[in-house]
């Protein structure tokens, strides 16, 4: 690791005031950033540690949404009675991330900001129609992920919380890479007042909705309807773990399993 300076603000305002250049990075759980620093893929001048900002922690119900502070760990979301009661699929998703130690440190804000194509939370952000709250504005989940590791966040914009509308029912199914735990493909299916929603991660450069599946499920909310949709492989990821065609097939298969799980 190259040397860097370190700041540990105790309030959001202090943190934002410290973000004066591109070369200053936020540190949340460090489960992605610290390995990146070790590999010297990033060499920031300074880190601003969000670890002591209490306002960024915690889970609360606000109206029809579950609002999760950016600094909330995957383990806290997985264990939260509030999340398990309102959106069990989200608690399950959090409990499938990486391993226990990654879940004890990694945070929802870090995961969403990082926008790894194989990360789990992005499937929930688009699949459940979440809203990203930042220090400046709110961003609809549908337009948050733009490309590989690219989001709608401006430089030096800080995620404060992610708000998930409570669906009528939802399920998350993931085909995990056995070594890393990351999603080769992960699919969140939600039944909502506005109709079915399907969020896909792992398959493309960033998470996306699958309108073809949503339409099929609006017609008949059955596993067969989901399996009957043949997803195009164009533009999907291909690597040593899976071809684009295999990922395309997995989307329909996992969507049908999620529908079956919803029942």
């Amino acid at each position, binding site marked *: *690791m*190259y*040397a*860097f*300076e*370190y700041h*540990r603000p105790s309030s959001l305002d202090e943190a934002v005031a410290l973000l004066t250049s591109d070369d200053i990075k936020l*540190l949340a759980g*460090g*489960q992605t950033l*610290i*390995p990146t*620093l*070790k590999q010297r893929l990033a060499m920031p001048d300074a*880190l601003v*540690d969000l*670890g002591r900002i209490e306002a960024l922690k915690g889970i609360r119900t606000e109206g029809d949404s579950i609002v999760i502070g950016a600094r909330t760990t995957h*383990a806290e979301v997985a264990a939260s009675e509030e999340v398990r009661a309102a959106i069990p699929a989200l608690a399950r998703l959090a409990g499938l991330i*990486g*391993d*226990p*130690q*990654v879940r*004890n*440190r990694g945070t929802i804000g870090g995961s969403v900001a990082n926008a790894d194509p194989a990360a789990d939370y992005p499937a929930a952000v688009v699949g459940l129609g979440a809203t990203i709250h930042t220090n400046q504005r709110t961003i609809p989940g549908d337009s948050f992920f733009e490309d590989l590791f690219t989001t709608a966040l401006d430089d030096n914009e800080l995620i404060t919380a992610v708000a998930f509308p409570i669906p009528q029912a939802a399920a998350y199914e993931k085909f995990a890479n056995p070594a890393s*735990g990351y999603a080769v493909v992960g699919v969140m299916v939600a039944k909502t007042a506005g109709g079915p929603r399907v969020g896909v991660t792992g398959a493309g450069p960033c998470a996306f909705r699958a309108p073809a599946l949503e339409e099929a499920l609006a017609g008949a909310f059955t596993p067969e309807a989901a399996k009957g949709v043949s997803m195009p492989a164009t533009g999907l990821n291909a690597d040593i773990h899976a071809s684009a065609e295999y990922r395309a097939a997995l989307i329909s298969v996992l969507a049908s399993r999620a529908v079956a799980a919803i029942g």
Partner: protein
Amino acid sequence: MSIAITMTVNGREVSGSVEPRTLLVEFLREHLRLTGTHVGCDTSQCGACVVLMDGASVKSCTTLAVQGDGATITTIEGLANGTTLHPMQQAFNDHHGLQCGFCTPGMVMSAIDLVARVPNPTDADIRKGLDGNLCRCTGYQNILRAVKAGAQGMQTGMGG
């Protein structure tokens, strides 16, 4: 830039002055000379470096020492009571849960975290609980037996 930090490690208050890039595992091994915590991969994969931070298991190779400022840390050296091994250590001994022993400190710390959350773990719970720990000697079957016995030992306060 050097930062003064203080933490409680194995019941003892310690302080030091570290660069921000110093990893928690470096602070433990090189500053405090607690070399029971190992570095296997240094890339967050193997779990040889697992310690308890405020009661939760973390990979100390993927935590900065400054992030641990003010925290309570337990390493493998902090488990035994004098010459009496912790029930989980005793169970690894009794059930041959180690071959070369390199992964063992991390395995034991992860297992203790697991049992704190799931007092009577099933085989599936144990496998999931040790997801973040790799054993290069691949002694997984005996590790599984050891953790099962260790969990019972922790309930009764005896060696497994």
